[in-house]
């Protein structure tokens, strides 16, 4: 018989501490959909996605029932659209975005990722056209998510793309102004983007991937926070051990669900992304873990060290629990999606500069941060440039998902709803990096990229 204490621990994790599978994401290659006829291209894309993912939602629900663990989202990621529509005009890209949105609605998935371009070294003509369509694509669709990779440790940073993305983010904010610029919540600018990330908004199905793959993202900040609370006044070595053991258990559930989904759907298992992904719900916050570790409030001095230790322990615990770990894997620090982060911001303890430092040791980057609507394009590009520098220099993924909320300024609030949460608008520096940004060109790859 299974140990009673183990059974009660698992049930408690799920019922009281918000343990869940955050997402089962099916990655689908669209390469075989390519056609020079726009109508046929869109029809091919729709048919392929709706056929491959026909049973995704139903299967997810069945697994949820079998193991008694919530699977919050069932999602789809596709090959970066810039690669599929390279021969087409801007209007066709918009039609592709609408096709993806229609497929997502037909299948009942809440997000579909892959309206993406990879331009870390330079632009193809198709990629450039596609990036120009992002604001309109996000304005005329509901469930499509977009991302652009502008830098990598191997290639350096494409500063023309960084410059362009400042403008694209502002345009997206303007095009979706009636919904608090929500389009920007579905647009991520990356450095070192992973090819198998199951989490939105940055998910897409990378170039070297299988025809179709199942990637699973786990969650569980509440479980880690509770474990730390129960540990009491132990030293940090013991705390790291506790986090590792907890991360192991969380990730094992992810592996179980991923294997089961892969078997039932007849689709190869890709990876488990062993992330701590917060939600705006009480008891599901990464910031509160840091506070449980001993910080008075997230954002105070010591926050970066605590986060670095948390992030490392999560990976060490999780990596043995899964046969293939990938994606972003670490602790997310999205501001509007984390109840503790929102509280730290409202308390005046968490500033943009500290968030930036935290991104050097967390799993991704500056995420879901509402900034004033009148922020200059060059300032947004400056934020992106700084984040990519951190990612490129540290050989890690970094990203920027900021929302310049149209018509709103510091001190006002914005509410996106659902998992995207709400946030006070941050006051950020308005001093201009315009000349630096508009120089364009490429920041060369760092010396440690030359590993051969």
């Amino acid at each position, binding site marked *: *018989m299974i140990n009673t204490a183990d059974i009660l621990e698992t*049930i408690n994790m799920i019922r009281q501490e918000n343990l869940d599978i955050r997402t089962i994401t099916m990655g689908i290659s669209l390469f075989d959909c390519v056609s020079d006829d726009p109508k046929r291209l869109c029809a091919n894309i729709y048919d392929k996605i709706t056929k491959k993912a026909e049973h995704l939602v139903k299967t997810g629900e069945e697994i949820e029932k*079998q193991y008694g663990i919530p699977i919050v989202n069932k999602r789809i990621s596709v090959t970066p659209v810039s690669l599929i529509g390279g021969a087409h005009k801007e209007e066709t890209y918009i039609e592709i975005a609408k096709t993806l949105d229609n497929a997502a609605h037909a299948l009942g998935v809440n997000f579909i990722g892959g309206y993406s371009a990879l331009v870390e070294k330079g632009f193809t003509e198709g990629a450039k056209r596609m990036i120009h369509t992002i604001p309109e694509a996000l304005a005329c669709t509901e469930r499509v998510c977009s991302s652009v990779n502008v830098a990598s440790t191997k290639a350096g940073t494409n500063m023309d793309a960084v410059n362009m993305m400042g403008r694209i983010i502002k345009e997206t904010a303007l095009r979706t102004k009636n919904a608090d610029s929500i389009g920007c919540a579905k647009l991520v600018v990356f450095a070192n983007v992973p090819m198998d990330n199951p989490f939105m908004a940055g998910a897409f199905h990378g170039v070297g991937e299988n025809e179709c793959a199942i990637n699973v993202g786990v969650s569980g900040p509440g479980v880690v926070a509770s474990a730390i609370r129960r540990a009491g006044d132990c030293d940090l070595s013991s705390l790291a051990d506790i986090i590792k053991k907890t991360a192991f258990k969380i990730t094992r559930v992810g592996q179980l669900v991923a294997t089961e989904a892969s078997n039932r759907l007849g689709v190869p298992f890709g990876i488990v992304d062993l992330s701590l992904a917060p939600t705006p719900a009480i008891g599901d916050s990464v910031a509160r873990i840091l506070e449980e570790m001993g910080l008075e409030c997230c954002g105070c001095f010591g926050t970066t060290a605590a986060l670095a230790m948390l992030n490392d322990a999560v990976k060490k615990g999780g990596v043995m629990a899964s046969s293939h770990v990938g994606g972003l894997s670490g602790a997310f620090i999205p501001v509007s999606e984390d109840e503790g982060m929102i509280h730290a911001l409202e308390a005046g303890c968490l500033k943009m500069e500290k968030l930036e430092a935290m991104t050097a040791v967390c799993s991704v980057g500056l995420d879901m941060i509402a900034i004033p609507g009148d922020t200059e394009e060059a300032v947004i590009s400056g934020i992106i440039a700084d984040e990519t520098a951190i990612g490129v220099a540290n050989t890690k993924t970094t990203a920027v998902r900021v929302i310049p909320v149209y018509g709103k300024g510091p001190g006002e609030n914005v509410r996106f709803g659902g998992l995207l949460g709400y946030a006070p608008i941050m006051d950020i520096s308005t001093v201009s990096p315009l000349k630096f940004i508009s120089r364009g060109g490429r920041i060369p790859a760092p010396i440690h990229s030359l590993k051969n």
Partner: protein
Amino acid sequence: MKAVISVTGRDNVGIIAGVSAYCAEKGANIIDITQSVLQEYFAMIMLAEIDKLTVPFAQFVDELTELGKAKGLEIHTMHEDIFNTMHHI
């Protein structure tokens, strides 16, 4: 295949009878039970073989949850694999 059925709530007459009668009706063979009562609080964990279940597992889970609600109990039914995976290497 085995399912773990956990039952918690205020103690009253016929909890085990109710759950086991339902299991018998649906073809679930109970192979182990541990239960304890702490003050007025009842906790039971039941292990049942579900290979010969006469209804789909999802329906079995839902109906047990409803049975619990009717008696003021919380009943969770989960496949044993989640516990084995989580707590054993």
